[in-house]
């Protein structure tokens, strides 16, 4: 087996919350991520799914080195992200691209699209100054936008166009890994379909490794070959997309699937209550409060992510049974 491009070794991320007031100043701990294990192989397409507040964005920010891990290690190749030297940092910046959830906000409003796209090219000296124009035209063409947009400002593009520009900028540096946070949320279905097709074609053609955050299991299944389900800061189930869709093993994954709106099934509120606050997590399984399968043992011991079968990992004491 080849060496993974990213590995997360029991990564934790805690935030200290200061209580208001003078008395009782002992800070409380918010565990945004708690014991995350993940291996990402070259060419993988992985979707991170989970309810809002489950820690998806935090996880990706850690993988990008935007935030340090409070505990555990994030490895890029074999190097710890926290210990990269200047040269390695530069290489990382070129090889790993990020597409922000807020695509418009991630672009300088006073720069033209041409300058925005040219910035990474100039920065990494990917081509001669004279060849940049040609390169920009090719980039726009690749994401299906007319070259006329190059002279516009970000505020002058529609929601679908600006997301394509964000994709184009991610591609500009010819990265090996693309990470994207909710890149199709809030788009009209027809525009969403265009952007999804674009991303899928890009991954298939150039073998880019993709980490895609979404709260939409449909989008995850369309785009990615693997899915990792997060709940309250931990990956609770992980495996190939088809297997997860057909036979979810974690009760939370099953509930997410049941709540997904479908033409052929009636509405079903599969889960009661809301995701609790990650402050002062209870003892035992973090899902126990909402889990329909919970038993006494679940409130005692906290299940870690363990191998369920050859390709699936589940963090549950009583995984959902069912035919493969």
């Amino acid at each position, binding site marked *: 087996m080849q060496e993974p491009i990213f590995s997360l070794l029991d990564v934790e991320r805690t935030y200290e919350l200061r209580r208001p007031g003078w008395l009782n100043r002992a800070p409380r701990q918010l565990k945004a991520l708690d014991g995350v294990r993940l291996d990402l192989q070259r060419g993988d397409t992985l979707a991170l799914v989970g*309810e*809002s507040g489950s820690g998806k964005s935090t996880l990706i920010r850690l993988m990008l080195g935007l935030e340090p891990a409070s505990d555990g290690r994030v490895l890029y190749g074999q190097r710890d992200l926290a210990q990269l030297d200047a040269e390695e940092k530069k290489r990382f910046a070129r090889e790993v691209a990020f597409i922000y959830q807020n695509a418009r906000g991630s672009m300088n409003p006073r720069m033209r699209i041409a300058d925005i796209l040219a910035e990474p090219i100039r920065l990494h000296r990917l081509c001669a100054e004279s060849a940049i124009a040609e390169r920009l035209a090719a980039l726009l063409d690749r994401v299906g936008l007319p070259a006329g947009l190059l002279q516009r400002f970000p505020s002058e593009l*529609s*929601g*679908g166009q600006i997301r394509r520009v964000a994709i184009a900028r991610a591609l500009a540096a010819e990265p090996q890994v693309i990470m994207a946070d909710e890149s199709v949320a*809030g788009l*009209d*279905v*027809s*525009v*969403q*379909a*265009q952007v*999804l*097709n674009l991303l899928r074609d890009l991954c298939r053609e150039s073998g880019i490794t993709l980490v895609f955050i979404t*709260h*939409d*299991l*449909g*989008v995850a*299944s*369309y785009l990615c070959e693997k899915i990792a389900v997060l709940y309250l800061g931990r990956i609770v189930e992980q495996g190939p997309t*088809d297997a997860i*869709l057909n036979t979810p093993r974690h009760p939370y994954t099953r*509930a*997410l*699937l*049941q*709540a*997904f*709106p*479908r*033409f052929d*099934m*009636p*509405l*079903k*509120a*599969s*889960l*009661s209550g*809301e995701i609790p606050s990650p402050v002062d997590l209870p003892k035992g399984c973090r899902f126990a409060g909402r889990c329909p399968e919970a038993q006494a043992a679940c409130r005692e011991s906290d299940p870690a992510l363990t191998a369920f079968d050859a390709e699936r990992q589940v963090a549950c004491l009583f995984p959902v049974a069912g035919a493969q």
Partner: protein
Amino acid sequence: MDCAVALTTQAANMPVSEEPLLDVRDFSLRRGQAVVLDGVSLALQPGETLGLIGESGAGKSTLALALIGLLRAPEVQLEGSLRFRGTELTRLKEADYRRLRGNKIGLIFQDATAALNPCFTVGQQIAEPLKRHLGLSKWDRRERAAELMHSVGIPEPRLRLDAYPHELSGGMQQRVMIAIALACNPELLLADEPTSALDVTIQAQIMELILDRVRELNSSAIFVLHDLALGAQVCDRIAVMYAGQIVEEGPSERVLAAPLHPYTRGLKSCVVELGSRTLVPIPGQVPPLDAMPAGCRFAPRCPKAKAICGEQRPRAEIRDGRQVACWFID
């Protein structure tokens, strides 16, 4: 009354009374030169739920706002008729509208955070329509507000009466909005994307809640939705809007399972379902309001368009129990 509840929940499609609860006829709305809504016709029977579906800018919210009288002359110009329980709404005075709004017609907006007033407790905000429309005493209002909060699934309602909106999660805020909308037992509930900002798990809870409450009150509801599958799950009827017109309208199972209008088909093939293998986007984009094609507004993007489509606007035809506006229905 009670036995009517039992009847209509079972047979939502059967007309209960002669006159529909809401009757929209050839309704148009202009903002200056731009025709935002163009000849919209709809009828809603008591106890029915209707879903408005279509791309951004299709005019779904505009129609909802016009229905509750928040878009009126001189800001916009209205034509055609909007009848609610036999009353012509387009000619209603603002004072009379205010008696309807929040009382006979309840409202739920997409963004509860923006719709709730951050300066008042949720208890005060739920009590407001009880005071204005029902004239309940202060003590009764508080009691009723607690009951309402309980009925929308807010745990420990008495403790949370005095909470401010920012102290509640998005899902809880949406529940408060629902409690406010249902406070006066409305006959019609308008919900503009009530769950777009929420997770699917919470969305299912909220939608189930709204449906239960609406059925209990034997009210009708209009949902503005962007999720077609959710429309199939929660709506008796579906109206598909494109560029200010209703292109297809009918029972949801037929419209969504076997769409007749090319636009409805296009929309459906863009929907990501669990395990979708291919998505076929609709080419092009919605034309701007000031550059609408003369004939069928969908013609520039329609795979079936022929010469006549660019010249004449198709009239809505009844076909297979629904109205469809297309020259070439097969």
